[in-house]
């Protein structure tokens, strides 16, 4: 039953900005122990418009984000697990040779809250969050977002 190594999980992340674009990607998460016993989890995401609205789109810009988040689960491991967290990120927009901004890089910061549902204690999701970017990069003007996805444990985390 004991899992001294912590729980590593990975899965897709789909993010839709309210009245904006789709940014999709991958999430890697870590919880220090069996999920039922720990409220805190950390996640590392890569999300991009390349895998979202820019996929097959014509007039869409390429925007990439890497975000590190800390999440507090209020009912870890349960079927209905509300959670809240904050994330710090790095954002880059490709302006395709045109000088549109002083810098195409930016720091992002968002607060989010939502629900996770652990179909199995080892599964971190599916989850659905609503969040708000207090710091945004240039080229996006849609601070409210919804993200959803699911997580499956990485092989070495399954006991």
């Amino acid at each position: 039953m004991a899992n001294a190594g912590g729980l590593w999980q990975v899965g897709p992340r789909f993010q839709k900005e309210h009245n904006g674009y789709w940014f999709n990607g991958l999430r890697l998460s870590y919880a220090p122990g069996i999920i039922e016993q720990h409220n805190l989890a950390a996640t590392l995401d890569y999300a991009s418009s390349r895998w979202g609205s820019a996929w097959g789109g014509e007039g869409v810009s390429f925007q990439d984000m890497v975000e590190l988040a800390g999440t507090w689960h209020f009912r870890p491991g349960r079927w209905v697990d509300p959670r809240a967290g904050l994330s710090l990120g790095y954002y880059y927009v490709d302006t395709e040779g045109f000088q549109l901004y002083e810098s195409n890089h930016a720091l992002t910061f968002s607060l989010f809250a939502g629900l996770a549902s652990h179909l199995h204690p080892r599964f971190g999701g599916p989850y659905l969050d609503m969040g708000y970017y207090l710091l945004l990069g240039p080229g996006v003007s849609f601070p409210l977002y919804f993200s959803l996805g699911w997580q499956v444990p990485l092989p070495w985390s399954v006991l």
Partner: protein
Amino acid sequence: MKSALNKSVLNGSIASGSPAWVLALGLAAVFCLSLFSNCELTEADIEPTTMLDGDIIFDSSSYLVSDSFPNPSDSILNLPVIIAAHGFSATTFEWLDFEEFRDSVHSANPDSAFLLSRVLLGGHGISYKAFKESTWREWQAPILEEYRKLRDLGFTRISLAGASTGGTLIAEALASGKLELEGHSPPDNIFMVDAIVIPMARALSLIDWVGPIVGNSISEADSEEEAAHWYTNRPQEALNELLEVITRVRGQLEDGITLPEGTQLTIYKSDKDPVVDPISGLLMYKGFKSSGDGDVSLEIIRSKLHVYTRSAGREEKFSSGDFDNQKDTFADMRDKAIGP
């Protein structure tokens, strides 16, 4: 062991339950408070003697070519015409500088260069009430009406220019085929000046949710002239219409908009525009596709202004560099409208 563990977890989660929900509510409050940073939660404040919003000042002057030349001669019909559409909350005043440029450069015979038809968007230039009740399709209608009238009169060299939302409305018309008139050739040129696809104001993306709470957004004019030619009060209904049309055009650009055969599109975008995110220029450049002899070009202008071509009403803010930008763009538009 498992049941013992479950029991301890259950107890633990009940104990941590109440502060958890308080935190969740707190977060919700943070979201809500930050939404209102750009808006003033006030009712419309109208000073009828000085503001466009009131009933006294009414910009009904007609600057339409179709009105000025109801029976155009062949020599008139041979002239290039530029239909110019202003932006959100503005009036025909926004394109006054272009007319003055033409008149001063071609002072001997201004009309010999090109004809300028300044369209007044629906719901604009009237009153706060008219603005509040109008839809983006009503804003757009006068552009389409003037285009059709000029074609019916026999004009063959027609270009369209849009400032800010005026450009967005022209883009929507192109995407929806509203400028395709049977038996008539397509527009020669489309000029976009700081057309809006992505706004700088983040609150706009939330207006469909918070609109009824916000009610009205006030944008104080910087001068008497501006108060007389732009609406000061922007009701949430109008902001919602704006959000709707920019979202629609954003989607149309995602799908790609093919220009009519031979139509040239020139996108002018100021790089430090405080109202429209410069990425809007790139999105139009990527989203519009030329066909036939047509071409799409994007020019980034070094400017801190929104609709950098407009000096009327804010001359004291214009540097010599700004006047150069204005002149260069007007000359470029004139040259392209006249053609080879």
